[in-house]
């Protein structure tokens, strides 16, 4: 781990001024930890997000970087509590980013695939600090699905400084893809798969939730290109893909037939919004002639 505190202020100043450093040997990005509200049905939940501007957006931004090159990240914590930062199974910052503080660090080169970047502290996990990191994916058509589940009562407790009770069952009421729930998933250009017949795309999926999920593809089989947990499945062709808690996978989809097909969680409690069907983790694949 290297923390370039000396360069932070210079880099941050350039970024704020809209200037990017022209360095070919590594990529760089800046993330703001923003606070805001997420509205679903009759619930409003206080959430945290990694955004690429200081303005709160409901979706965590997806990061892209090259394979086999370092990624320099600057994280600016706008929350009132400290947060750690890491890439699941790859790298961890090891120290907290304090409120209103800025830290820049280098993440070592990673192999091609999809990874989860996140904060592993309780507040970060339950309030949504978890995003998609794509490494070395170069296809013209790329989509990403950041899966999450939310229990408003638990989020309210944690956002106001409460602790988890061991015997309290987890009963999520919302299930989202990129912070969208069906039918609003159709508005998400990153999640709604739209291609022409014969096109090929990658779909980067991260399970940022507190439970396992399982997605079923109508109309298509997809091939596992990478997985951070179920590595034995790389190369498998599947229509039903489990995403274990914290797992990140890259899937290859070949648009070999026209039409509109759903992709949805086959744990069917998760295709609901506050218990009402249809909702939650459903998105669509639309293949045009």
């Amino acid at each position, binding site marked *: 781990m290297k923390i370039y505190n000396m360069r932070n202020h210079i880099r941050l100043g350039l970024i704020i001024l809209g200037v990017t450093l022209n360095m070919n040997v590594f990529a760089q990005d800046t993330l703001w930890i923003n606070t805001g509200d997420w509205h679903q049905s009759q619930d409003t939940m206080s959430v945290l997000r990694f955004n690429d501007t200081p303005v709160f957006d409901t979706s965590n931004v997806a990061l892209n970087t090259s394979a086999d090159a370092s990624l320099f990240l600057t994280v600016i914590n706008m929350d009132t509590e400290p947060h750690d930062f890491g890439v699941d199974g790859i790298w961890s910052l090891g120290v907290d980013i304090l409120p209103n503080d800025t830290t820049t660090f280098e993440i070592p080169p990673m192999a091609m695939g999809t990874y989860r970047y996140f904060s592993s502290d309780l507040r970060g996990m339950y309030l949504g600090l978890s995003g998609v990191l794509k490494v070395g994916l170069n296809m013209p058509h790329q989509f990403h699905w950041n899966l999450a589940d939310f229990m408003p009562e638990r989020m309210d407790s944690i956002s106001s400084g409460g602790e988890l009770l061991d015997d309290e069952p987890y*009963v999520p009421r919302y299930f989202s893809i990129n912070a969208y729930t069906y039918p609003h998933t159709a508005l998400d250009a990153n999640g709604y798969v739209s291609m022409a017949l014969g096109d090929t795309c990658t779909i980067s999926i991260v399970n940022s939730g507190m439970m396992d999920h399982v997605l079923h593809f109508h109309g298509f*089989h997809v091939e596992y290109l990478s997985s951070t947990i179920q590595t034995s499945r790389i190369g498998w062709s599947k*229509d039903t893909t489990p995403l274990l808690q914290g797992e990140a996978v890259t899937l290859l989809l070949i648009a070999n037939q*026209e*039409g509109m097909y759903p992709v949805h969680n*086959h744990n069917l*409690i998760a*295709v609901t919004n506050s*218990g009402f069907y249809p909702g939650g983790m459903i998105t669509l694949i*639309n293949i045009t002639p």
Partner: protein
Amino acid sequence: MRVCITFLFVASLFCHNAAPSVAQTFSPPPPLLFTGMDGILISDGGMEIPIWGYGLTSDGYITVPGPLLEYETGDEVNLAFVNNSAESHTIHLHGLDVNQANDGVPTTSFIVVQDEVGAYAFTASEPGTFLYHCHVTTTLHLTMGMYGMILVRHPGGVLFEGGPAYYSDAPLLFSDLEIATNLDPVQSYPFHDIRPDYFMVNGRSGSQLETGSTGIPGEPGTILSCPNGESLALRLGSMAYTLTKLIIPSELDAMCYMSDGRPVPTPFGVEELDIYPGERFTVLISPDAEYDGTIEVQSWDMVNQEYVHSNFVRIRDAALNIGDPQSPEPLSLSISPNPSRDFISVNSNDGRDLADWTIYDAAGKMIRSGHSNSPSMRIDISFLESGAYILESINGDHKSRTRFVR
């Protein structure tokens, strides 16, 4: 503007009362299946659990799971069902990658309302293990029981082209239900907290998986037998709301060759296998000589990741079956209408007189008996309480049983 139009269209995709968006253009075949919402599942403890489901039109009753549908690689399939229930239903051909018109999703394909016939056409292009289920208000219709397994066999007794040979198939469909939901589906909202409390293998649970104790007199349980030196193909699929975890004894030399209707690139030995809802696996087992043991089928809560329940499927060397009582003869009675409130007509399919007949309730208690010198008769059942019953006919050495529901 384009986004808005797309959103409005997509927002209606899962509503089940909209007009079909893709019409069927071929002549539908006679319905093989029908859908019903008045079935009864007899639990391991003898409880009568209401179910919805699919049944063969030739049988006249629905089951959980629905009938096993069997095809051969390359078959051009025309599959139709008649909806005999008040709610609309469909068939989603899970994993067969059918086109949009035949996908079974309301509005992107079509929906089948009461008394109408729905027909699906597809090519069984890949061998393997697949599923089918209703895709209308899916969260509810599945927990009520509207699902089954599809098996596409490859010619030549092999799993797939260039794949291993095997002796026979053993379909095992894992599912579950929340009893309170099935008892009162109208009041079952909200659906986000369905917590199954009854767990099944091929619709059976606990002691029902042992021979002769299915709750139905004389109906066999689930003992999988395989001659020593041969391989049995476990066709594993899940329609559960829980994670299914199989614990397979090492003596069975289990090898996984396929998942979701495709060969896995490298077959692998398996002693523990996680099957998530909607997944399928094909695993070959080769029991040692004189093997007699069980595969444990564990169910795990997916939300809190806690162990919930175990069922056991017994496996044994076929040589151990020698000397066992003979399996019951194939059913040769037909009953219609089924279910019925007042009368049932009983016909012997092989033309034998019905002779001595007996009605048993689900617990095996004799309710009524009689004698008929005809291959057909009409029986008044208006006095029976609602539930599932067995009609047995004995003519000399020939014994037949079939189930009906009042």
